[in-house]
């Protein structure tokens, strides 16, 4: 789908990345503030000159004969953290600004106002002035404006960072809709793991200008470096599962994960749907014998793959539950008392209510574009 190789040196900071993404979807650039995410996307968009860059999107190279294309010719949509709507136009004027300069370079039909307005809920806003919009509305208009340029790639640079939690919740569903309904590859910059969990199909973990690791969310959720970036509380394996059935009475969904079935409260779940959930390491209880008479709904069997030190008093236990891995944080004392070691069979317990907040409906499988 796209490949990015870029080098940029500035004031002692060195950006040096090599990113390869083969499937369409949302690529999350994830890392702490100052790790070079915004520098990288500005290089990709052409707003910042790189010392060296070779970027190819869908077979279209952003440099010709050694000269890199100007930002205005790249066909890359960009949604900035601060929206950057034009104050001297109303909402319609802002949208038209993008539409008028759209290039028809994609094989897919051109994105029109008739598609974008309902998709982003923009109809009631069209005649409003920019200063009459809330933060969330501004971002939706900025999204629409960028989409109407018919971009090959859409860059979203922390579009939710300047919004409060309620506004964020208001915009997130629109982003999910974009991912699921339009076949535009997106680069989503964020330092919020929550957003990444909800939107990303591919994650690039960045640290100090370098790519630390890249891959699917499941793989990266097990990456030891992640702890330093998301904080110890947010460490936990991300798992994929298939909803087998939903109990109408209790609202509990049975979800097949590897050899086990997890029971999770999931509003949006229907049988056959794919879901993604994070099981926080701090919520997973381990037992070395089959537990009985517990209120816990989820008891998974597995074997310990490895144990790594977490902080001075705790350890992180990687448990292979057959087709998936989960993480559990235990105290060193508990680990010694239970005699935890690699290869040992364990039962991993997690309350359904613990997972609930981290369950997300996964995007429907997309068609692969004909190449």
């Amino acid at each position, binding site marked *: 789908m796209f490949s990015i190789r870029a080098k940029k040196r500035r004031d002692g900071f060195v950006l040096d990345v090599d990113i390869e993404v083969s499937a369409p979807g949302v690529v999350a650039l994830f890392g702490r503030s100052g790790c070079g995410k915004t520098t990288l996307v500005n290089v990709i968009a052409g707003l910042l000159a790189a010392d060296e860059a070779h970027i190819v999107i869908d077979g279209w190279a952003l440099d010709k004969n050694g000269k890199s294309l100007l930002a*205005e010719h790249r066909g*890359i949509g960009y949604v*900035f953290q601060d929206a950057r709507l034009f104050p001297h136009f109303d909402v319609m004027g802002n949208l038209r*600004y993008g539409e008028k300069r759209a290039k028809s370079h994609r094989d897919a039909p051109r994105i029109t106002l008739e598609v974008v307005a309902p998709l982003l809920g923009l109809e009631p806003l069209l005649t409003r*002035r920019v200063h009459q919009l809330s933060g969330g509305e501004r971002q939706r208009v900025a999204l629409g404006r960028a989409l109407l340029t018919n971009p090959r790639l859409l860059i979203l640079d922390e579009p939710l960072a300047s919004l409060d939690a309620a506004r964020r919740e208001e915009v997130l569903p629109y982003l999910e809709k974009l991912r699921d309904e339009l076949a535009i590859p997106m680069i989503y910059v964020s330092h919020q793991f929550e957003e990444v969990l909800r939107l990303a199909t591919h994650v690039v973990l960045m640290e100090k200008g370098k790519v630390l690791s890249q891959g699917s969310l499941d793989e990266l959720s097990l990456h030891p470096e992640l702890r330093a970036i998301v904080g110890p509380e947010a460490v936990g394996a991300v798992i994929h599962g298939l909803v087998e059935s939903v109990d109408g009475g209790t609202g509990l969904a049975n979800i097949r994960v590897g050899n086990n079935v997890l029971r999770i409260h999931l509003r949006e779940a229907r049988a056959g749907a794919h879901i993604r959930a994070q099981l926080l390491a701090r919520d997973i209880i381990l037992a070395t014998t089959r537990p009985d008479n517990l209120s816990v709904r989820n008891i998974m069997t597995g074997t310990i793959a490895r144990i790594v030190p977490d902080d001075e008093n705790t350890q992180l236990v990687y448990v292979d539950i057959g087709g998936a891995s989960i993480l559990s944080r235990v105290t060193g004392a508990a680990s010694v008392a239970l005699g935890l070691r690699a290869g040992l069979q364990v039962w991993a317990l997690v309350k359904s209510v613990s997972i609930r907040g981290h369950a997300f409906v996964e995007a429907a499988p997309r068609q692969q574009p004909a190449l």
Partner: protein
Amino acid sequence: MMLTAAEVDAVRLSLSIALRSVLFSLPLAILVAWLLTRRKFRGGLLLDAFVHLPLVLPPVVVGYLLLLLFGMRGPIGGWLYANFGIQLVFTSAGAALATAVMSFPLMVRAIRISLEGVDAGLEDAARTLGAGALDRFFTVTLPLMLPGILAGAVTAFSAGLGEFGAVITFVSNIPGETRTLPLALYTALQTPGGDAVAARLAAVSFSLGLIGLLAAEFIARRVRRMLGR
């Protein structure tokens, strides 16, 4: 208060010269302000100082330099006359040029301040939307700096009505051609019994100046509202 035909002439001439000077210098002032704000280049500091020179030089010196450059035998003046038949010395066009040079720094200043207030991030946004350099200048930068441009133009116009030293040195004091309001006032003061004329012209100057400043403020408010601030 009735003005004589000669006095009306002087007022009319002042207005026309000030207007022409503004129309002539505005595009150049926008270009210079843009260069000084948005482009970092070698010699930027020198250009900045050069533009501001008329503020610190005695106006007579400016008039004298104009005479050297644009006089009939000056390098530019001679060329203009030989090729286009344009004469600047002793004409109202020359008066407009002298006025433009003198009020240029005021105009650049006002435009620069408003340009500095235009978020360069909006220009970046326009780039990512596919707007080339000229396109984004005319659709984003220029409209957003409009308050400063109008303020600069009105200030320069008002100041231009009263330009004296550079004008009288460069184009002299010819009734009906270069005798603007301040020059007419000066002439009246030099004439025995001209006190009443001088007082009337002073009153006219005073009113025009006041109207100019009020107009500038009024326009600035309207434009700010138009831009949604």
